């Protein structure tokens, strides 16, 4: 923006003929979709915060979430920390895929996208196991809280992690579609890999929501 002013002092980005934000319509609309989706998740998390704050007792997260698949014993918050690491890692591979796309390096894009998809599938499998363990082994459901007296505990947990998990699921699906398109050379023919950038934004949003879900349910 500074160099535009230096070249012609009376020219502003808002004179028409170009995007004043220097982004494509598709990328801008993805950003605004994410703002709207953020408000949806904010609503859920605010409901959780308000209700939890109004109760005199609430289960301690490190005592409830302390199981690991296949290994007996208590490991407070370990598995959910692994899930956080997995999602952060998949965000890194996603942004490296976007970077490879901007360099038009098709093979690298495919490689990093496949790693991102694997990260997403590992997260979904982990979340499914977490649900299975809580419902079947601990007896925590939408109507019963075995740790304290509020059924809201299960209701809030399953609703919010369910919505988040659904976003991860749709993200993995669209990533699979995208990597298939990349492999056929579709974006080389098109001339740019901006599609990967846009779904990259969605994937980072999914990671970002998890940061706050993790904060709300497992940390505070």
């Amino acid at each position, binding site marked *: 923006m500074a160099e535009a002013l230096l070249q012609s002092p009376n020219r502003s980005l808002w004179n028409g003929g170009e995007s004043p934000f220097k982004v494509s319509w598709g990328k801008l609309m993805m950003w605004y979709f994410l703002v709207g989706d*953020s408000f949806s998740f904010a609503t859920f998390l605010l409901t959780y915060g308000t209700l939890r704050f109004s109760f005199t007792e609430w289960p301690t997260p490190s005592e409830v979430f302390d199981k690991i698949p296949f290994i007996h014993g208590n490991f407070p918050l370990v598995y959910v920390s692994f899930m956080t690491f997995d999602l*952060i890692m998949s*965000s890194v591979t996603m942004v*490296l895929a976007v*970077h490879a796309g901007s360099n038009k390096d098709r093979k690298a894009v495919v490689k990093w996208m496949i790693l991102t998809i694997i990260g997403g599938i590992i997260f979904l499998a982990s979340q499914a196991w977490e649900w299975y363990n809580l419902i079947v082994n601990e007896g925590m459901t939408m109507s019963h809280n075995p740790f304290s007296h509020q059924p809201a505990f299960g209701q809030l947990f399953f609703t919010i992690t369910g919505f988040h998990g659904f976003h991860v699921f749709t993200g993995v699906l669209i990533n699979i579609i995208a990597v298939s398109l990349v492999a056929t050379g579709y974006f080389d023919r098109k001339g740019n890999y901006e599609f990967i950038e846009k779904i990259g934004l969605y994937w980072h949003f999914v990671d970002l929501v998890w940061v706050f879900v993790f904060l709300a349910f497992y940390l505070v």
Partner: protein
Amino acid sequence: MSTDSHDGYDLVKAIWRTFWILLFITVFEVVIAIYVPRTTPGLLWGMRVLFIAMSLAKAYFIVSIFMHMKFEIKHLAMTILIPFCFILYAVVMLLWEGSSWLDMRIAGH
């Protein structure tokens, strides 16, 4: 439209550096959540403020580096970030509400 042409700025290095920062913050948060006792209310609320601040720091790194916001036009960044002030307002209002419900519960209503 390539947004990765920044003179002298090594984006790949910044990405990996951000990864290590996020990992370090997360490990730090988890260690505190597991090992610090939750008996004294002052310590508990201090921990919660710390967790919220660290999560906001993680959000800053994810949005600015991974989602590339740092390199976008500042006005674009503003149109996306300013609506979150409404969420901040909602947080204040709803925690106030929750606190009032807690008082009512304790008083026996």
